Structure formats: C-alpha cells, structure tokens
C-alpha cells in the first residue's frame, strides 16, 4: 500500500513512528512549500525534526512554533499536526496566511520531546520530562521547560531530580533544548516564538521567572487579548491571558523567557483545552476543535508579527 497523508487520521492520536512517517510523507507531498529539517539528536539518539514552511528567499524573518515539550500533553502534538496540514491547505485561499508566508517562514517542531513521547506510548502515558539520566542519580528525566538559560534555577523550578519540574544539571544541558537554542540562534532572524502546552486554557507571555513586567508588556497584553478573542469566536471556548508569572505561576528556565531575552519580542505560551474533566487525557474527538481554535489564535499572533516588524 502506498502511504500518504490522505490516509492519516487527524482526529486521533498517533505514535512517534506514525508522526515521523507522516512528516516524511507531508514534506514529500508539499515539497514546494514544506521541508523537513533535522536539528539534532535526543538523549536516546532519536532525530529531532522541524517542519519548515517557506515560499523561498534566504534568511527570511521567521516564526517558531513548538508542541509537545511535555510529552504527556498529547493534544499539543495532535494540534501541531493539524495546523501543519492547515497551513498547506489554507495557503492560496487565506490571504492573511499568504501574506505571512510570502514574507516570512514558519517553523513547527511537532515532537519537541521525542524520547518522552515514545515513552508515553510504551511505558508510562503520564510521563512529562525527557529521558536523560546522570551517573549516581536514580530518578530519570529533566523538565525541558525548566532547562533554558533565562532564570535557570529560580522560583518554580526544582533541583531535585525526582521532581516533575527538575531543571537539570545546567542550563541547556539537555540536547532537546540545546538543539532549539542552536538552531534559533544560528538562524538569527526569528521574530515570534510560540510554545504550546496543555491544559488550562491560557495564552501567556513573559516573564515566568519574574513578576517584573517586560518592556513590551502592553503590546503583548493586547496581542494576547486579540488572540484569545479570535480563539473564542471559533467554538466559544474561553481562555484567560496575561504574563506567565501573574496568570499561572512563577516558572524559571522556561522557553518563552529565553525567547524574549534573546530578542524575540513576540514570545507566547499556550495552554490548550481542557479546564478539568480529562486533563492530559483529552478525548481524541476534541483534537480538531482544539486545533481549529488554536489556529485562529496563532494566525492572529503571526499576522501581528508580520504587520509590526522590528
């Protein structure tokens, strides 16, 4: 049987192998717009892959989206897949998207924590961290959303390797984080970075490690508000928004704080559905509605990024 993305079910969850196979087919089928980039290897030597959506041109400004840094948040990977498909389907029909892609590139890392994700399918569905180990330490894994340089080791991260929020031995000690840092720093022209989590229905911006408002606080607040409004219009799902430390909790060494301090002004973190019935076990029937509304919020941020160059 010939495999293709047409036979892929976007309304069900998939294993790492299935997603990687889909990525191969997807890039092959849409080679005019999509390419697959290998940005590194995980602790367990799995490939770290990123999809690049580009209409051409060297070193364009770019938008980064990552899903699944916490491996048990399956709705995020599924949303990343659906959104990737949406981009190729909507390009040419959606004038906003067309404008964005005619000027900027979009990068999507669908499985940001491949080792952890594989582990959720084989051993422990509720695994959150990666799978790295250190000699003499019994507990395995680092919380990849506590391993970034900005605020590393501060409030809302843990030095205990057995904690779910273990920060790791050093900033960027984890290959999954180092690969992204290397890629984004090497590229040098990212203007937005959006990291997608689940669940509690929020759109947030820096800082997580400090209660201090960022210099662009007002603009980010308004943009988060606009994103949440766009999301609400799709299925009537309400999100709250604000800075991470004032909306959710203090968290140090996180992706979007690093992004902001690295000069990426439009740094946002999403917490997708749901508010408390299924948690990380959101039924597959909610994948498409979740992705549809998330797409509108992302589109709002991407459009703003295009229209407000800096």
């Amino acid at each position, binding site marked *: 049987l010939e495999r293709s993305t047409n036979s892929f079910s976007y309304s069900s969850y998939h294993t790492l192998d299935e997603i990687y196979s889909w990525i191969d087919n997807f890039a092959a089928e849409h080679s005019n717009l999509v390419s697959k980039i290998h940005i590194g290897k995980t602790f367990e030597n799995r490939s770290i892959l990123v999809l690049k959506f580009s209409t051409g041109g060297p070193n364009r400004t770019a938008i980064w989206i990552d899903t699944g840094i916490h491996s048990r948040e399956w709705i995020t990977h599924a949303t990343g897949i659906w959104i990737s498909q949406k981009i190729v389907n909507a390009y040419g029909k959606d004038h906003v998207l067309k404008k964005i892609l005619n000027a900027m590139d979009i990068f999507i890392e669908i499985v940001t924590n491949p080792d952890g994700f594989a582990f959720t399918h084989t*051993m422990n569905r509720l695994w959150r961290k990666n799978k790295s180990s250190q000699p003499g330490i019994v507990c395995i894994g680092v919380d990849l959303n506590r391993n970034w340089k900005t605020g590393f080791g501060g409030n809302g991260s843990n030095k205990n390797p057995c904690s779910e929020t273990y920060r790791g031995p050093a900033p960027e000690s984890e290959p999954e984080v180092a690969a992204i840092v290397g890629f984004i720093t090497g590229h040098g022209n990212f203007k937005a970075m959006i990291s997608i989590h689940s669940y509690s229905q929020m759109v947030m911006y820096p800082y997580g490690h400090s209660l201090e408002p960022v210099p662009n606080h007002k603009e980010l607040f308004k943009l988060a508000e606009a994103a949440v409004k766009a999301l609400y219009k799709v299925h009537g799902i309400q999100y709250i928004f604000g800075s991470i430390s004032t909306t959710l*909790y203090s968290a140090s060494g996180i992706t979007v704080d690093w992004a902001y301090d690295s000069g990426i002004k439009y740094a946002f973190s999403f917490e997708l559905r749901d508010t408390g019935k299924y948690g990380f076990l959101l039924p597959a029937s909610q994948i498409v509605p979740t992705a549809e509304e998330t797409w509108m919020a992302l589109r709002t941020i991407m459009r703003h990024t295009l229209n407000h160059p800096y």
Partner: protein
Amino acid sequence: QMNFTGDQVLRILAKNEKQLSLLRDLESQKPQKVDFWRGPARPSLPVDMRVPFSELPSVKAYLKSHGLAYSVMIKDIQVLLDEERNAMAKSRR
C-alpha cells in the same frame, strides 16, 4: 505499560496562600507519589493532582485534616487510558 488502575485526579480549591503552601508541602514530602497536573499557583486557580491508588487514603486524610476541599476530577485514570488506547487501535484499523 504502567497501570494506573484506581489512580485518581483530585481537584482542590485552595482558599488562601496558606492552603496553597500546604499543597506545596505535599509535593516536597512525596515528589514521586503525588503528581501535580496543575500545580499550586494562586487561590483563584484550581489545583489538580494525580494520586496513586495506594496513596489515596493518606493524601485524602491530609487534605481533610487541613480543611482543604477537594473533588474527584477523574475517578479511575486507567478507564480513560483504556478508552484512549481502544480509540487509537480502532483508528489504525
């Protein structure tokens, strides 16, 4: 696959910072036995935590003894996991 039969997710609504602190203490006492799905952040936000079946009596007693109100968000995690696995298998077929 690890089995989560009887594990529950409890939703706690802390009234104030002191109660949140009691929940944080619970994590530091038993980091491997209590798994926060939504950590103790602020009184306006609920706290969700997965509690293994074997720890349920002691954790519920801890919550009760400190006047922390809770509800059961997920009664048996394994039931949901079985449904999820079946749905994946069906989709694959």
